[in-house]
């Protein structure tokens, strides 16, 4: 059980080293080592410590957060197509953040507003899907998709009435990017804490994946568990969105790929999602900033280009 996690951990390490080594400016490994020891030239130090390290860690945290959020949502809805992006959580967070930008608020308030948006989206989707009492996964998924479309319309409306001078900041943010992410530590902390705290619940999630009745018959308090997952997934999504804007499909593809390889034991899938999601985004971001350098691609474009075909393939195969 530990072995796949160790292998993934090693992969993550390799990806981070690669991300630190690759860029518009090549820094050879020995010099990276020097910088890590507190030496090295001022330029290399600035390149690695001020640019690449925060950016790489932000990508690592964001990818992990989104993948774990996706894995949780999928168990909750017993549907491998669930994902914070598809369910409108990202949309709610984006609307919150854009509102704050429109009001000219600072970075911290933008984060807070994005978080409030994700929570509102959560309550909206859960509340509406709950409705008259029946609360089936398909109903929840459908509610989420419709609410997500609603957020999309609100975003378009906001962009249309936004003074043009505020547009670059907002568009940049909507596309999802870690280029200017400065403070990856809160996101990393949220990720690590969430995974540690969810681990005792992981076997409950395994049981929940068999359906709520079976789970209840095996001693799981289903409704509180479902709320816990949904709130936690919202927290993870909101943290990811405030770190790097709106990045899609990581939450969809990573848990799915892992299930194909490792099976569906959440005790492995959840930490593995954190590692693999982080690794994927670190690699995608490395690609985004080097593939047509000095032109920079938003990392959201790379993940969407990977995610859309995967999503369609899943849909195609599931019917």
């Amino acid at each position, binding site marked *: 059980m530990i072995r796949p996690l160790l292998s993934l951990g090693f992969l993550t390490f390799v990806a981070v080293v690669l991300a630190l080594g690759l860029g518009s400016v090549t820094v050879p490994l020995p010099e990276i080592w020097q910088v890590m020891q507190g030496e090295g030239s001022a330029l290399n130090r600035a390149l690695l410590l001020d640019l690449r390290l925060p950016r790489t860690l932000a990508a690592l945290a964001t990818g992990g957060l989104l993948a774990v959020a996706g894995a949780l949502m999928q168990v909750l809805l017993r549907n491998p197509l669930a994902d914070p992006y598809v369910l409108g959580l990202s949309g709610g967070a984006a609307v919150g953040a854009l509102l704050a930008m429109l009001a000219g608020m600072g970075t911290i308030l933008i984060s807070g507003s994005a978080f409030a948006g994700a929570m509102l989206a959560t309550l909206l989707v859960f509340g509406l899907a709950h409705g008259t009492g029946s609360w089936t996964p398909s109903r929840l998924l459908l509610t989420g998709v419709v609410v997500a479309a609603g957020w999309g319309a609100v975003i378009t409306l906001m962009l249309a009435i936004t003074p043009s001078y505020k547009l670059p900041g907002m568009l940049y943010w909507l596309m999802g990017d870690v280029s200017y992410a400065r403070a990856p530590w809160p996101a990393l902390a949220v990720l690590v804490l969430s995974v540690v705290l969810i681990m005792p619940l992981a076997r409950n999630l*395994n049981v929940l*994946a068999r359906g709520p009745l079976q789970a209840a018959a*095996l*001693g*799981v308090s289903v409704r509180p568990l479902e709320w816990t997952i949904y709130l936690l997934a919202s927290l993870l999504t909101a943290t990811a969105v405030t770190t790097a804007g709106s990045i899609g499909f990581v939450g969809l593809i990573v848990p799915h790929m892992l*299930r194909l390889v490792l099976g569906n034991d959440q005790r492995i899938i959840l930490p593995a999602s954190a590692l693999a999601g982080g690794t994927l985004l670190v690699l995608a971001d490395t690609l985004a900033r080097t593939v047509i350098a000095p032109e920079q691609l938003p990392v959201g474009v790379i993940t969407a280009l990977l995610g859309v075909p995967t999503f369609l393939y899943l849909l195609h195969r599931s019917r």
Partner: protein
Amino acid sequence: MSRLRSRDLVINVPGRSDGYSLNLTIEPGQTWGVLGPNGAGKTTLLHTLAGLLPARRGEVVLDDTPLKDLKRRDIARQMGLVFQERQDSFPATVMETALIGRHPWLSPWVSEQCEDQTLAEQALEALDVEHLSDRLLTTLSGGERQRVAIATLMTQNPGIWLLDEPTNHLDLHHQVKVMNLLQAQARSGKAVFMCLHDLNLAARWCSHVLLLYTNGDACWGPADSMLVPSALEKLYNQKLITVEADGAPIFVPVRPGPTP
């Protein structure tokens, strides 16, 4: 050793008047069969007894505590349920499925140990599915999956076994095997309570029978006092012929046709 009782229980079948309230006592050692036509509420009764559905009136008592005062985890240690319908949104192997039965016995931080593995292996073996233990559930036949579900309950090893149509999809050999296994479990001190649609399985293996009518009426008692043609004909609205073989009654429907 657990005992399950229902006190003035009226199950909640939508659109049906209250009917007769149930005062059942399911004791260790007993094997109950619930008989009734489609839509009589057999599954609803089973889910209500398991605490998965709210009762319309009355309550279910496990030993001396009302079910609603117990934690789900404590209930699951004493009572398990094999469902008629099963969800599998995610692929899982047979072994993983059986091990799920250990869930109520393990604390959150502990993962399955050797003895849990052994219990699961024994259960799979008892149901002739141990050779499938690495296969994905989705690749199995209906009968094989039914046996895996019963093996999961056996791995859970509660005092009270609730089963919804445990012989569904099973071939004759495995029907007999499963019924023998359930009877053996009852003899070892479990209480077994199952919905059946085969009168003759009930007649052959059940010590007690509950007849559930579409209008909500019910009667229950020792099998031999309940399994009388008049009551069964009324239950199913079907004329029956009774024959006796190997010491147990066998009920055969009368074939409609030209009267001699």
